[in-house]
């Protein structure tokens, strides 16, 4: 029996979809079978971030309306063994799906996969409720800014109320330079405020944008700190105990190296 993990945040634009795509890929790269589900009905994006947009035929709506079997609706990622995507319908809206229907899909998928990752939409309404309905565990994603942290706390309260356990925190877009200068709350501040178990810190990295441009999740190339951070989170999700290293500030030299490797 696999685990169902909802990736959520409350606030939009903090990196839920980026995290789902990279963690799904990372888990598959270390040999797990994974389904990533886009639960952002009407505003789907996980397909483009993963570069699978041209191969989608069916969506979770087709499965719910019995137009297609669940296994046929899954799109295989050909770059890595064991990774599939269940896309969301663009033509429907969030109220067209009921929590029990999402739960049934998650239950079926967990029976023959190690991990089911559900990419939640922003907000605390029906879209979030559907995404969380079938989840045992949650990854709460936040950035180090005031509004994202506040919303993360709010969503944590709702998840606890639903009995989702454990709830782990992913801190995304941390800039060690800004923390050093006192212009960004630190990792320790965020953990103290939210009182959650921190499962990983992903640095601010321009590579995220170029990898999204290409539709190739960052973790396919393990050279950046952000990719390595996602790989470590994936390993922690499988139960490995790996300490969370401090993020290094990029020096002059690594910027030059990056420039030469075209990793921009």
């Amino acid at each position, binding site marked *: 029996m696999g685990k169902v993990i909802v990736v959520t945040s409350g606030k939009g634009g903090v990196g839920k979809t980026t995290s789902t795509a990279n963690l799904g890929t990372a888990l598959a790269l270390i040999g797990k079978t994974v389904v990533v589900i886009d639960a952002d009905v009407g505003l789907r994006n996980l397909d483009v971030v993963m570069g699978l947009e041209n191969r989608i035929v069916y969506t979770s709506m087709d499965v719910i309306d019995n137009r297609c079997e669940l296994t046929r609706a899954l799109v295989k990622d050909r770059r890595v063994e064991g990774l599939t995507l269940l896309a969301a319908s663009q033509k429907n809206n969030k109220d067209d799906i009921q929590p029990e229907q999402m739960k049934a899909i998650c239950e079926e998928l967990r029976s023959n996969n190690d991990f089911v990752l559900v990419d939640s939409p922003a907000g605390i309404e029906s879209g979030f409720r559907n995404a969380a309905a079938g989840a045992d565990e949650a990854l709460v994603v936040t950035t180090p800014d005031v509004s994202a942290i*506040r919303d993360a*706390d*709010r969503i944590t309260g709702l998840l606890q109320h639903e009995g989702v356990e454990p709830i782990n925190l992913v801190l995304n877009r941390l800039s060690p330079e800004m923390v050093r200068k*006192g*212009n*960004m709350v*630190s990792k320790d501040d965020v953990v103290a*405020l939210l009182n959650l178990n921190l499962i990983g810190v992903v640095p601010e990295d321009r590579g995220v944008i170029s990898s999204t441009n290409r539709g190739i999740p960052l973790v396919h190339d393990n050279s950046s700190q952000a990719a390595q951070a996602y790989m470590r989170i994936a390993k922690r999700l499988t139960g490995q105990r790996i300490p969370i290293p401090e993020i290094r500030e990029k020096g002059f030299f690594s910027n030059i190296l990056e420039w030469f490797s075209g990793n921009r």
Partner: protein
Amino acid sequence: MNILKIFGRKPKSSNIAQQRLKLVITQDRVDIGNRDIKQMHRELAEVLARYFNFTISAAQMSLRQEGNSYVLIADFPYDNAR
């Protein structure tokens, strides 16, 4: 030019963010807003004023997190002078 601007240190914005977050998160968790706290403050002041003298303007009330619990701290300084 203000000499304090040259020598005085501006508080780091990260510290301000942390303080502000502490307050809003606490209020969100307890599900009580600033307006409710102000109202409660007014009502308490009314009751207290029947029993002793204090300077209303100096009175303060705030919600704080201490460990895993929340404390409502009311500070009504007793005014002897009146």
